[in-house]
């Protein structure tokens, strides 16, 4: 057995040494632990007797570190030990700089990472390289794997069947500028043509360009025809892009999952600072702190404008511009195992977004017709036609799509929101796509106004998750983000609320969770990277605290779940009876004015063909 000498060069603190001794023994080493208060001389003397392959020193007290530890390294070299014994150091008092200055071979900072320690003992370099290898081996998770999508509630299944058939019947023969642009964009990608290609213009390019621009708003047309950028948008300089490339070439995120036990839930956070470079930095920070996936948020005006731009573009307001170049740049920077969602669920460019997202390597889409066609969104007719087309694309590409339930933020009760999500689930399934419902865990206006969460926030949230398990065998991904409307401008408070919501969701066995940054609700501009770390850290420790403990729903949670379940059935019945999905949205069956929902108006009158 290989010997390792463990030395607490500290007057009292040796708990880490005892822990290391157990872990090293389990890993098959003969770990010899010395007592606290041991001097450098004693350590060297012992090492000369035992001839260990390594001496691992632990130091906790923060004063006189250099004086206490510096001696050891010089003595080890003077006594000839260093040629066969490697020296490692760790503990609360140790930084990489101290370790380097003192001449140790390896320095372990932060929490104990046995993979690193063992790599060191096996003579492998510790740190960047080891971490890099571990990252490369990580497989990209698949959220939808293993789900049958079988409906457990047959009544709901039947109702949904009827509603979906009506939708599909209604969209037959209809199209929109959004769909036509998506087709042109797909053709351009197949031909390797972009609208701004400076090279010799071919006939095909000319045709595609003319057709595309005819379907665009003035802002977009001006961009292609006169090089005029929309307000607040600028080109990224080549130097900025290259600098990023160099930076990323040298930095490797060390992935350590947020989960303490098990493989689920996966954790997602959204980005969309406006600047792709800043986005990449945010993603790298989030990855380094354990996120499993990220969601791309585009500018709100992008959804309200017919047509998409091209090139590397930065935007000074919230939301990062959807262009193939921006998307590829951002994807390229991510770790291979990071899941990437490109949302395109509410705007006039929904179908084209799926085309670009697919071309850039998206793993997930986000489409919700009822939500996207209310609350300042797109015209219900338009989004229904575009949404169905987008779902077909998702099915064709084999890319699952998630369905956010954020209409609750306007004041819609959960059962109405969930009914809308269920219609999207059934519609997606019928078209061959894989849907992921996203019930929102939040303190919504409905809850506040009607006092539904006055006593606690657990029962209602549990009920909102339970009901999904009762209805269909599908993945469940609470979002977007969890704890919305419980956050305050205080970062500690905000992180705390995110963490308890994430832990609650985790204990309910959900498949993924979207978390906010601690300043997301109050950032007054792009959120900060440090605030991302706040919540990732908080969630990690909440999960550590909770482990594999499962919650048993209280009687009140069960009652609430029944209430929501019944409510869903009622809503679906009325929608089915109405026999017109678009009309149901317009008439408020999935959320009315009292619930804070108004049908969207953007793109009204742009659907053509079929029977209107």
């Amino acid at each position, binding site marked *: 057995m290989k010997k390792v000498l463990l030395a607490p060069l500290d007057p009292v603190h040796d708990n880490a040494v005892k822990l290391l001794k157990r872990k090293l023994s389990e890993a098959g080493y003969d770990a010899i632990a010395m007592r606290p208060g041991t001097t450098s*001389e*004693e350590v*060297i*003397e*012992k090492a*000369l*007797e035992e001839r260990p392959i390594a001496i691992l020193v632990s130091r906790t007290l923060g004063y006189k570190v*250099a*004086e206490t530890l*510096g*001696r050891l*390294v*010089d*003595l080890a*070299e*003077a*006594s*000839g030990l*260093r*040629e066969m014994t490697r020296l490692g150091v760790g503990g609360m008092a140790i*930084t*990489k*700089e101290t*370790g*380097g*200055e*003192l*001449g*140790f*071979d*390896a*320095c372990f900072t932060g929490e104990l990472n046995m993979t690193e320690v063992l790599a060191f003992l096996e003579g492998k*370099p*510790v*740190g*960047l390289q080891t971490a890099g290898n571990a990252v490369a081996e990580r497989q990209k998770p698949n959220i939808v794997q293993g789900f049958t999508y079988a409906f457990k509630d047959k009544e709901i299944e039947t109702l949904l069947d009827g509603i979906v058939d009506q939708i599909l019947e209604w969209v037959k023969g209809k199209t929109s500028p959004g769909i036509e642009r998506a087709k042109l964009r797909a053709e351009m990608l197949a031909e390797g043509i972009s609208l701004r290609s400076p090279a010799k213009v071919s006939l095909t390019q000319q045709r595609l360009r003319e057709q595309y621009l005819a379907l665009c708003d003035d802002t977009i047309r001006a961009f292609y025809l006169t090089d005029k950028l929309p307000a607040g948008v600028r080109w990224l300089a080549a130097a900025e892009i290259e600098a990023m490339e160099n930076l990323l070439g*040298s930095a490797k995120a060390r992935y350590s999952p947020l989960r303490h036990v098990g493989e689920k839930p996966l954790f997602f956070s959204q980005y969309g600072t406006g600047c792709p470079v800043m986005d990449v930095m945010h993603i790298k920070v989030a990855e380094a702190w354990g996120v499993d996936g990220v969601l791309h948020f585009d500018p709100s005006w992008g959804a309200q404008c017919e047509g998409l731009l091209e090139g590397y573009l930065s935007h000074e307001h919230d939301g990062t511009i959807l262009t193939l170049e921006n998307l590829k740049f951002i994807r390229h920077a991510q770790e291979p195992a990071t899941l990437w969602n490109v949302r395109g669920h509410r705007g006039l460019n929904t179908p084209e977004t799926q085309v670009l997202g697919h071309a850039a390597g998206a793993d997930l889409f986000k489409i919700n017709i009822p939500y996207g066609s209310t609350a300042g969104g797109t015209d219900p007719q338009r989004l229904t036609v575009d949404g169905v087309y987008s779902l077909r694309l998702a099915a064709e590409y084999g890319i699952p799509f998630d369905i956010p339930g954020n209409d609750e933020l306007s004041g819609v009760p959960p059962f109405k929101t969930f009914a809308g999500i269920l219609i999207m689930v059934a519609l997606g399934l019928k078209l061959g796509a894989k849907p992921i419902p996203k019930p929102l865990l939040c303190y919504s206006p409905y809850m506040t106004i009607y006092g539904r969460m006055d006593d606690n926030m657990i029962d209602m949230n549990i009920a909102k998750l339970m009901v999904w398990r009762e209805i269909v065998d599908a993945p469940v991904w609470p979002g977007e983000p969890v704890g919305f409307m419980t956050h305050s401008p205080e970062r500690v408070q905000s992180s705390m609320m995110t963490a308890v919501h994430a832990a609650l969701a985790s204990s309910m066995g959900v498949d993924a969770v979207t978390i906010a940054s601690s300043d997301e609700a109050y950032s007054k501009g792009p959120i900060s990277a440090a605030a991302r770390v706040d919540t990732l850290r908080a969630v990690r420790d909440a999960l550590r605290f909770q482990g594999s403990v499962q919650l048993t729903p209280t009687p009140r949670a069960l009652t609430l779940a029944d209430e929501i379940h019944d409510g869903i059935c009622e809503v679906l019945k009325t929608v089915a009876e109405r026999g017109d999905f678009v009309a149901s949205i317009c008439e408020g069956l999935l959320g009315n004015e009292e619930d804070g929902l108004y049908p969207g108006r953007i793109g009204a009158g742009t659907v053509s063909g079929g029977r209107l």
Partner: protein
Amino acid sequence: MKTVGFAGTAKNTGKTTTALHVLQAGKEAGLRLALTSIGYDGENRDNVTGLPKPRYTLQPGMLVATGSTCLRSSTAIVRAIEETPIHTIFGQVVVGEVTYPGTVLLAGPNRSSDLQHVFDIFTSLGCNLALVDGALNRLVPMTCVDGLVLSTGAAFDQRISHVVEHAGALLRLLRMPVIRDEVPVNSGLWVEFKDQTSCVLGYGSLIGKNLLDTLLRTLIAPVKKIYIPGACDPHLLKLLIDQKADLLRGALMLFRSPLHLVASGDPLLWKEIFPLLEATDIQPSSLQTPQVFFMTVNPFYPRYLDRNGMYEAAYVDKRELLAAACNRISEIPVLDIFQPPFPDVISLINYFAELPDVTRSLC
């Protein structure tokens, strides 16, 4: 190629300032210069006192050996020439040439064998003078440099008398006579008795009570020569002499390098051992030692402020410090690089390096 190590008796004694001074002089003399470190040097501010620290600023054409991750945090642009197999906390040690001036973060090899490897690369690249930044308390890797420049001052101790006393003791230890002698290579502690018999122990250091006991049991006849290649605790050496004075009388006590002795005990402790050796007629010598080219003294020290828990820059009387040091140390030049006289440091390095080891005498 000449190699010079810079070592300080404590943090803030002016080691980096001195090395920068030599770098500048070397540049003016048209030498091809190289820089590396056996520790880590790179903060703009001292991490304890928060006071500003000098940084290594390198000019185009200079060579540098540092950890690969350090290159990214340097403002100088360095063209990598050779990746060494040496791993450090800051990545693999890379040898490169500065192509654009700026600061560099230094974290080089930390063992003497690795330092030697880097020297070989510097030589192959036509370097004339290689500078090695030392680390606090760490001198042993310097066994392979041609010579040392020592820095001491008020940051070590604000009592001038104590600073010069300590410097004198350190110098005395470092200027132990060097003899060329046949000793078994890579051996343990080795004893040759006057009756021509000899024995080798399984370990090379005199450190810890157990090892002393084994040695005591071994010494059963008058000793002609005792060779301690590794570390040697001065307290144990004193015990050894106390108990075996009769057998050790007149013996040659051979160490591999006085740097090993500095690592094993405070120079002021060693200072007490020398009279003891003399009284027993034991002759201490070493197989090798870097020369000490010169010493610098620095009046600066960080003064702790009770009222706010911060530090401020403070100074002892610079003239008094320099005068006291020159007075106590006559064997080598002592200078304050910010006070006259301003000797040519390059010639100081060259002149002494030409002297053969054996001509130096015990001071």
